């Protein structure tokens, strides 16, 4: 990176070269987190920061974002890493108190201090009792006083997080400790009470709703402040590279369905809608392109007029290939439920690309849920109803693939025909029941294609009570589908 600075025609000052070094580490970590940063983008970032006044932290951040992050889904990863690399790390954040800052020589430390820190900042809240601090926080949230909230969150972290240098605990632990002491739920309740008192004649439901959203927003900001504060202290203690490593979280499309946390689930749900739209467009295009329909005689003759009656330009009709019919058979027992939900959601969201979609769910009994999706605008709602309304328990509510397939074959087997593509979703953990793998063989013979999607990592297949291999031999394909990226890829190839 220092070479770069020289090639731009000026000798780098020490500060600038330190910056470039930092930038290089930052880019390395972005790449390690899965962002595809190319060499030319790296160079762009380096030249972009030369045009930006370095003391303007926000401009600096957006300069890096504009040149390095080309996908909105990667923004959060970028932001977290940016905070780690380029945040405030003066010696006051050091945990051991003697100002031993590992990055003391870098010139970035003392950029801008947050506004409003002067009055309430570091030492300001030391003498307060916990009750006074809580009261102050309440007032600050009530008024939406951001600088004060920031100062209090600093104080809260200092007081409650119990951070010690070199302690091998993650940031979430400290966050949990701090939040537990602040009792945010109780705080929200108090804020709402206060708002009601303040309003003459009470709040209408709408107003109450708006007030609550406002306070939710403020509390959310408070949480972010606390998180940032903890991160800053951790960076000061451990150094940016080590921190970046511990903070590395998978991108939304790489989150494992089976082990997603609640927050990751929410992110996944948000990610699925744009994904379905993309898929639908892509599939529709694929259908029209690549193949040509029959010759369009009229159109050809019409165009021949510009060539003096010579049909130099042949015109073809739009091809109308038949759409496949999809039958989804999904295991919705505990461990794989999330995966089944996402796949059903995805398949129904692009159901326009298929001539018909039928959905069956099972645990040890099997039930058809197609009707829940029909005439229902809201797929998320329908997926939710699947979980509550479908009658899928036969004996004990433990997965029994063999029995479920038997029921399917008896009741609906005759409806599988040469146009149907059958998708089976599940981990094939059969609790040592009879496999009934012959049904898979029958279905395979009758259907157009039979695919098995397994949300488990491939290494676990056929271990313990997993018998995916027994079913798999009869399928046209068995795929590991652990995250959105793999699901998208599979569906893309389906139509």
């Amino acid at each position, binding site marked *: 990176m220092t070479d770069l600075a020289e090639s731009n025609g000026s000798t780098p000052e020490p500060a600038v070269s330190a910056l470039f070094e930092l930038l290089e580490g930052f880019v390395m970590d972005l790449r390690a987190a899965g962002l*595809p940063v*190319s060499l*030319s*983008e790296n160079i*762009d970032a380096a*030249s*972009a920061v030369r*045009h*930006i*006044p370095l003391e*303007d932290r*926000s*401009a600096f951040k*957006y*300069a890096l*974002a*504009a*040149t390095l*992050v*080309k*996908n*909105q889904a990667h*923004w959060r990863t970028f932001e977290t890493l940016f905070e780690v690399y380029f945040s405030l790390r003066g010696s006051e954040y050091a945990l051991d108190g003697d100002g031993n800052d590992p990055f003391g020589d870098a010139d970035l430390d003392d950029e801008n201090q947050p506004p409003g820190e002067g009055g309430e900042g570091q030492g300001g809240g030391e003498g307060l009792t916990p009750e006074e601090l809580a009261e102050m926080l309440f007032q600050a949230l009530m008024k939406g006083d951001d600088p004060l909230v920031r100062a209090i969150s600093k104080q809260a972290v200092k007081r409650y997080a119990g951070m010690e240098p070199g302690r091998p605990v993650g940031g979430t632990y400290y966050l949990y400790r701090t939040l537990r002491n602040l009792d945010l*739920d109780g705080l*929200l*309740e108090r804020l709402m*009470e206060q708002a*009601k008192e303040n309003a003459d004649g*009470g709040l*209408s*439901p*709408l107003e*109450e*709703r*708006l007030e*609550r*959203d*406002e306070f939710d*927003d403020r509390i959310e900001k408070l949480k972010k402040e606390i998180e940032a504060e903890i991160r800053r202290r951790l960076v000061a203690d451990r150094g940016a590279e080590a921190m970046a490593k511990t903070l590395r979280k998978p991108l939304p499309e790489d989150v494992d369905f089976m082990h997603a946390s609640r927050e990751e689930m929410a992110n996944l*749900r948000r990610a699925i809608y*744009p994904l379905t*739209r*993309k898929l639908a*467009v*892509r599939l529709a*295009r694929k259908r029209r*392109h690549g193949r040509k329909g029959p010759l369009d005689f009229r159109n050809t003759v019409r165009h021949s007029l*510009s060539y003096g009656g010579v049909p130099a330009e042949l015109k073809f009709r739009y091809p109308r290939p038949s759409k496949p019919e999809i039958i989804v058979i999904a295991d919705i027992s505990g461990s794989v439920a999330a995966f089944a939900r996402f796949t059903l959601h995805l398949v129904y969201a692009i159901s326009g690309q298929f001539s018909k979609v039928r959905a069956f769910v099972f645990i040890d009994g099997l039930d058809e849920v197609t009707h829940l999706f029909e005439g229902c*605008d*809201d797929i*998320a709602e329908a997926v939710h109803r699947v979980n509550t309304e479908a009658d899928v328990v036969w004996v004990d509510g433990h997965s029994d693939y063999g029995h479920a397939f038997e029921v399917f074959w008896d009741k609906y087997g005759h409806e599988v025909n040469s146009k149907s593509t059958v998708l089976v979703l599940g981990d094939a953990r059969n609790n040592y029941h009879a496999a009934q793998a012959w049904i898979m063989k029958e279905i395979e013979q009758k259907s157009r294609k039979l695919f098995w999607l397994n949300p488990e990592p491939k290494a676990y297949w056929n271990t313990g009570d997993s018998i995916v291999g027994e079913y798999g031999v009869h399928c046209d394909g068995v795929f590991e589908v652990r995250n959105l990226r793999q699901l998208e890829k599979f569906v893309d190839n389906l139509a």
Partner: protein
Amino acid sequence: MEHRFESVEAVREGLKSVNYLADDAIAGTAFLADRLQKPILVEGPAGTGKTQLAQSVAEMTGARLIRLQCYEGLDESKALYEWNYKKQLLRIQSEGDETNWEDIQDDIFSNEFLLERPLLEAIRSEDPVVLLIDEVDRVEVETEALLLELLSEYQVSIPELGTLKANQIPMVFLTSNNTRELSEALKRRCLFLHLDYPEMEREKEIVLTKVPDITVNLADQIARIVRSIRQLELKKAPSVSETIDWARTLILLGIEQISEKDATDTANILLKYRSDIEKVVKEFSSNTKAHFEAPAS
């Protein structure tokens, strides 16, 4: 090369003077695009002011806006240039037998017979232009390649004429609704700007700027309601332009304080799906989100 903008602040001020409220990201990226001479790829949900940004930048710098609307099936002859072959044919026919073929060939492949399409027009223009390539995600991946030479070198190669260099470097904006992933090659050449729904404060400011007769109180209420609506899981969240439409509607109806009834009666301005409207009406009238029992008041 002279720079268009002095500083990030100047961009923000300039955009404000043409009624476009830019946040840090917008102003910063526009400033960089000018300094680095790179196109900006603007991505985000519909109705967040992507196209408007290009128009406002054009208005603010006093440049001409050249717009290329992308669609499926867009090709070279619609985007870059085309030979006016009917005119070429006439030219050939109007010649007697004595002229030699070489001359005619040189002649019919000259500027006179070249039909300029938006991209070529943008780089050949003498006066400053802003080029807007709208909804670039609508063209096929292969067609994107047409843009690459222009975006990185600001030139167009025409086999018969040679390479045409830009007379001036235009500001280039590409917009995308993200219906598909754009190619790496295209993204690499651009600065990236994601325009999301604005923060509540900014949305309020936007409403205040765009709807002249509105009171601060009403704008505040509108922004807060819209923020709450966007937090629900909807098929299509209200866009900024829909917020503005809604504000105008409320003004026309003479409403100064929005009640639940007003909100639900006019929800069809903000939301375009029946299921979304039903959801919002349900949410707002019953206050089911409450975590605890509200004390009887």
